[in-house]
C-alpha cells in the first residue's frame, strides 16, 4: 500500500494559511502579491512580512510551504520573474511551483538544491513531458492538468519517478491549463499574461428586478433568475445563444470532488492531492481542508471499509460553484 497522499491546501492570505495548517493540511501553497502567480487578484496574496510569518507558522507545525510562480515571464520583464524565484529561495520555501520552462531552467541552474514542482499551468499531461522536465530541470513533482482519466493518471505514474499531484476539490473551468486565452478574448488579459482570469475590473454584476446579468468587459456572460445559483464570471461558464438555443456552450459551472474515488487515488500512488481556491476566504479553506483531512484519515484507518460520509458531501456541496459536483475527467469513459 502506498503512503497517504499529502493534502495541499490553498492560502490567499495569512489567516487562510493558518486555518489550513490548523485543519490538517500537510502543505499550503501561496503566491506573491504580483503577476508572477495565476491568482493575482486585487488585495489577495502575501507581502514579504506575511510570507515570513506564514512560513514560520507552517514550519513550526511541521508542514510544507509551496510557492507558486506559475505565470509566464512577459517580454521585457523576465527580471521580475527571476527576482521572484530568488526571493522564494531566500524565504526558504519547501518548493517552488513553476510553469515557464525558461524559469525552470533559471531556477535549476542557479539553485540546484531547490526543490522544484511543475505547475498545472505547465500543461504536462504525458510522462514524456514530465520526464523531460525531470531530466532537464530536476523537477521533483508535477501537478497534472484536470483532463486525464484515472487510468491515464495511473499510466503516467507507472512511467515516471517524478511525484504526481492531482486536484481533489474545487471549481472546474475548461481546463486548458496554461494555454487558455478565453479571458484575453473578452478583455485582453488572461492568467498567462497578468495572472488573473476575467479580472474583476472588467466584471459587472447588474441587478435588475427578478434577475441578475453578468458582463465581462461589456459582453453578456449570463443572466440568472433570483433563485438560480451564480457562478464565476468567466467566458467558459457563460450561457450563450448558439443557433437559436441558449445554454452552457462551453462548460457548466461545476466543482470537482474526488471523495468517492479516494481509495483508487491512493492505490495508484498519487503523492499529493491539491485543493483549488486561493481566491476563496479562510472560511472555505477551513471547511474543505477539514473535510478532506477527515476523509484521508478515515481511508488510512479503515482501508477497504472506507465509505464517503454524507456530512462530508454536504459540507463540500455547500461551498461548491454550480449546483453539481463531478469526478471531472477521472471517470470519463472516453479519452
Amino acid at each position: 500500500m502506498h503512503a497517504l497522499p499529502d493534502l495541499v491546501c490553498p492560502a490567499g492570505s495569512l489567516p487562510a494559511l493558518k486555518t489550513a495548517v490548523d485543519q490538517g493540511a500537510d502543505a499550503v501553497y501561496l503566491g506573491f502579491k504580483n503577476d508572477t502567480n495565476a491568482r493575482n487578484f486585487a488585495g489577495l496574496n502575501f507581502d514579504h512580512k506575511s510570507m515570513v510569518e506564514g512560513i514560520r507558522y507552517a514550519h513550526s507545525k511541521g508542514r510544507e510551504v509551496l510557492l507558486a510562480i506559475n505565470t509566464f515571464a512577459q517580454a521585457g520583464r523576465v527580471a521580475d520573474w527571476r527576482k521572484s524565484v530568488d526571493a522564494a529561495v531566500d524565504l526558504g520555501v519547501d518548493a517552488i511551483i513553476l510553469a515557464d520552462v525558461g524559469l525552470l531552467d533559471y531556477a535549476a541552474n542557479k539553485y540546484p538544491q531547490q526543490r522544484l514542482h511543475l505547475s498545472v499551468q505547465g500543461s504536462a499531461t504525458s510522462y514524456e513531458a514530465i520526464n523531460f522536465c525531470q531530466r532537464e530541470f530536476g523537477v521533483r513533482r508535477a501537478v497534472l492538468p484536470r483532463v486525464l482519466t484515472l487510468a491515464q493518471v495511473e499510466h503516467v505514474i507507472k512511467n515516471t519517478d517524478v511525484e504526481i499531484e492531482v486536484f481533489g476539490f474545487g471549481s472546474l473551468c475548461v481546463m486548458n491549463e496554461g494555454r487558455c486565452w478565453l479571458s484575453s478574448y473578452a478583455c485582453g488579459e488572461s492568467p498567462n499574461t497578468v495572472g488573473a482570469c476575467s479580472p474583476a475590473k472588467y466584471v459587472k454584476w447588474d441587478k435588475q428586478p427578478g434577475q441578475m446579468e453578468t458582463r465581462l468587459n461589456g459582453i453578456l456572460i449570463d443572466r440568472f433568475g433570483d433563485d438560480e445559483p451564480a457562478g464565476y464570471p468567466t467566458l467558459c461558464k457563460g450561457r450563450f445563444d448558439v443557433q437559436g438555443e441558449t445554454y452552457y456552450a462551453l462548460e457548466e459551472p461545476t466543482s470537482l470532488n474526488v471523495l468517492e474515488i479516494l481509495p483508487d487515488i491512493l492505490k495508484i500512488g498519487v503523492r499529493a492531492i491539491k485543493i483549488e481556491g486561493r481566491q476563496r476566504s479562510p472560511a472555505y479553506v477551513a471547511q474543505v481542508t477539514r473535510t478532506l483531512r477527515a476523509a484521508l484519515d478515515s481511508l488510512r484507518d479503515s482501508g477497504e471499509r472506507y465509505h464517503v460520509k454524507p456530512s462530508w458531501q454536504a459540507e463540500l456541496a455547500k461551498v461548491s460553484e454550480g449546483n453539481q459536483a463531478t469526478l471531472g475527467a477521472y471517470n470519463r469513459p472516453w479519452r
Partner: protein
Amino acid sequence: MNQKMTIPRFRLPQFVASLGQKLPQWPHSLVLTGALNAALKLKLLPESELALLEDKLFRVRVLDTGGEALYTFRSGLFRPVFQATREPDLAFAANLSAYLQLLTRQEDPDTLFFNRELEITGDTELGLIVKNMLDAVEWPNLPQLPLLRG
C-alpha cells in the same frame, strides 16, 4: 473568532423590514464606521489597500431588518454619510444571518454569492479589494465579547 458557535441561516419576518425602513438609518452608519475605525486604530487593515478606498461611497444593506449604512473613507478615517448624493461605488445586500456568518468567518463570501445570499453591485474590483482586505485581517481573540461567546 470563536469557531464553536454556529450561526444558522435565518430570515427575519417581513414586518421587521417594513418597520426598519421607517426608522432613521444614520445609527447603522455610525456603528459600522465606529467598528471600522476601531480596526484602523488597532492597525488591522493594511495601508496599501486602504489608499484604494479613498473617497469611495459604500452601502451595506441588511434586507431583512430594512437597515442600511452608507459610509466613505477619507483622510485615514471611515466616515458615515447621511445623505447619498450619488449611487454608491460599491453596494452589498444580504440578510442579517449572512453578514453574521461572514463576520465570524463561518461562510465564505463566494459561497454566499453562488447561493445568491449575498449581492454585490457596483465596482467589482473594489468589492474584491474590500473582501480580500477583510480576509487578510488577523482578528485578535475577543472571547470577552458576549455576542461572540459560544
